[in-house]
């Protein structure tokens, strides 16, 4: 049994004291920032990315992944208790979760969210373990044309699934690709788009762009809006869900897990879409749909499971193909590259300890989350009282020092300020920065593969449609783009992303 051997290896890595500690720090930090509104996993990972430089690759990835799925989990706590989604994907949980809390059933709501999350998270991780190796072996046969089409598909679907129009999303992705091209061209050795600046010979560092676009930009945006947080009054009494609660919830949990697992694989806003889809499905399937919005436990169980399943399966394309499905996954790939590991299907065979250690750590992390969360609910609620004016100086300081220490370059910090301004302008014009960072990461790879494919085909574009796999990827991209032509679908998508 190959799988068992791999898993044994994985657990031996994940259970080593050091990695256990990183996993613990990761999920704790993830829950922490998931609870804090205004600080998301994206910003946290962007800020901590430079700090992982000194860690071993396994420890770094285990910790960053823990932050990511820990945040998916922490977001639900505030959604239920104070009607504030810590994360956009928890927005749906607010609807019925908060109603349950108002009826004095905050405990069961939190418990069901936790149970659903664990089941979904563990199942999603099983999928990674099962689908990873076969997918990677297929991917190893990919030629330049296949990679090109795959990346194009990822960019199109990620652009289609953000708020706003597909055209804007594609514009952002392509702009990101242009910025990604800055630096020395590997084929000819000449400097492109460096404006004679020696600091740009290697191009913009990934950390610089990520910290600028997400950490700095978000601070500027948040400072522009006043913060009025609702008063927290709900007390949590009696955590255990009743027998009836369990009976009502187990089916939504399983269905949510299934929906989330499938949607999570898709690039783009998988998590948010998944929780929304699960909520809509539960309401449709329910014999008493009128209870939804008034504290139906199914409306918490389903979306929370979907959300966490999607958070896990989001790793599948990232880890097996080296193609990130979202900005957060792009950051995790960036972390791999900082460690000197080239993302792609070969990661699994060349660094089995890393891959299987990460997978095993996800099970441990998911279990840790439950043990950690339910007893600490009171602490998390107290955290909500921390004002933003205490938080943002911390983010500023850690980002600036972090960026500086990657290359010991003061110009890098100034470049990050530039990307902060750029991101701010884009955001004010309703252009989401998420496709930009994907484009930035994929741009150079896209160019390399495009050049190679065209070299092999002697300049004929037909190669992209005559190769069956490549044609499939392109077809999926076209379908995604085509779906966005229908105003009804676009409207529902925007609803799902902005309000939940």
């Amino acid at each position: 049994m190959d799988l068992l051997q791999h898993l044994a290896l994985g657990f031996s890595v994940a259970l080593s004291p050091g990695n256990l500690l990183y996993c613990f720090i990761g999920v704790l930090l993830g829950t922490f920032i998931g609870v804090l509104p205004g600080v998301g996993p994206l910003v946290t990972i962007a800020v901590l990315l430079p700090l992982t430089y000194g860690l071993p690759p396994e420890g770094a990835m285990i910790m960053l992944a823990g932050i990511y799925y820990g945040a998916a989990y922490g977001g639900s706590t505030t959604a239920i208790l104070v009607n504030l989604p810590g994360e956009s994907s928890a927005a749906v949980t607010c609807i019925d979760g908060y109603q349950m809390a108002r009826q004095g059933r905050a405990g069961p709501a939190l418990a069901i969210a936790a149970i659903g999350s664990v089941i979904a998270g563990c199942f999603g991780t099983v999928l990674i373990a099962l689908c990873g190796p076969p997918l990677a072996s297929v991917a190893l046969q990919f030629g330049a044309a296949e990679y090109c089409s795959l990346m194009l598909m990822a960019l199109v679907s990620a652009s289609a699934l953000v708020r706003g129009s597909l055209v804007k999303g594609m514009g952002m992705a392509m702009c990101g690709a242009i910025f990604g091209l800055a630096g020395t061209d590997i084929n000819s050795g000449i400097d492109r788009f460096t404006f004679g600046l020696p600091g740009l010979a290697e191009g913009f560092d990934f950390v610089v762009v990520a910290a600028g676009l997400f950490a700095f930009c978000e601070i500027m945006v948040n400072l522009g809006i006043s913060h009025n947080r609702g008063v927290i009054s709900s007390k949590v009494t009696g955590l255990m869900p009743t027998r009836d609660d369990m009976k009502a919830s187990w089916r939504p949990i399983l269905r949510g897990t299934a929906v989330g697992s499938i949607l999570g694989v898709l690039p783009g806003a998988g998590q948010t879409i998944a929780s929304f889809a699960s909520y809509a499905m539960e309401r449709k399937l329910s014999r008493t749909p009128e209870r939804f919005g008034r504290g139906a436990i199914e409306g918490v169980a389903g979306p929370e499971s979907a959300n966490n399943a999607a958070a896990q399966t989001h790793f599948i394309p990232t880890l097996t193909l080296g193609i990130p499905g979202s900005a957060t996954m792009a950051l995790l790939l960036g972390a791999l590259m900082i460690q000197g590991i080239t993302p792609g299907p070969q990661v699994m065979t060349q660094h089995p300890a890393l891959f299987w250690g990460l997978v095993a750590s996800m099970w441990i992390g998911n279990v840790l989350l439950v043990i950690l969360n339910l007893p600490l609910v009171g602490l998390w609620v107290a955290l909500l009282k921390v004002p933003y004016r205490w938080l943002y100086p911390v983010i500023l300081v850690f980002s600036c020092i972090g960026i500086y220490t990657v290359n010991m370059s003061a110009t890098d910090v100034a470049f990050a300020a530039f990307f902060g301004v750029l991101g701010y302008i884009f955001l004010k014009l309703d252009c989401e920065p998420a496709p930009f960072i994907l484009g930035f990461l994929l741009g150079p790879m896209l160019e390399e593969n495009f050049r190679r494919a065209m070299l092999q085909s002697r300049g004929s574009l037909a190669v992209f449609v005559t190769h069956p796999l490549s044609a499939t990827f392109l077809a999926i991209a076209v379908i995604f783009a085509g779906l966005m032509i229908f105003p009804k679908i676009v409207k529902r998508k925007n609803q799902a992303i902005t309000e939940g």
Partner: protein
Amino acid sequence: MKIQLTKDFLGGVLFLLIGLSTIVIGNTYKLGTASNMGPGYFPIMLGVIVGLIGVTMIVTALRNPENSETVASWEIRPLIFVTAAIVLFSALIETAGLIAAVAGLVVVGRFGAREGSIPELVVIVAVLIAVSVGIFVYGLDIPLRLRPW
């Protein structure tokens, strides 16, 4: 026809500008052919795509200005002070050292939002200096200059 500066219109202009400058700069590199691309080929291709996206957005925004809103408020204050704070940090970190750079960053950044009292600011600066020196210099052993001398 009166041009309405909607978000979509301005976004289109921004994309068009980025696309055009990419084409102009890309033109200075060798273009090559489709089967043997030079360093200029792919950037120009991207520039053309981004430029076309910009034009599409401008045209649609001019035709249906009601589909997009204007920017309600640019909130220039946080933009300027946060950017200034980061640039100041970048100027100070190698000359005046970490302590001054962190203090400058937090104090200037503070002007981005007019909230909180002076004593609170002093406490935040002191705590952040202590934490960053503790973590980065002593914890992670990164050779950062601490003081100007």
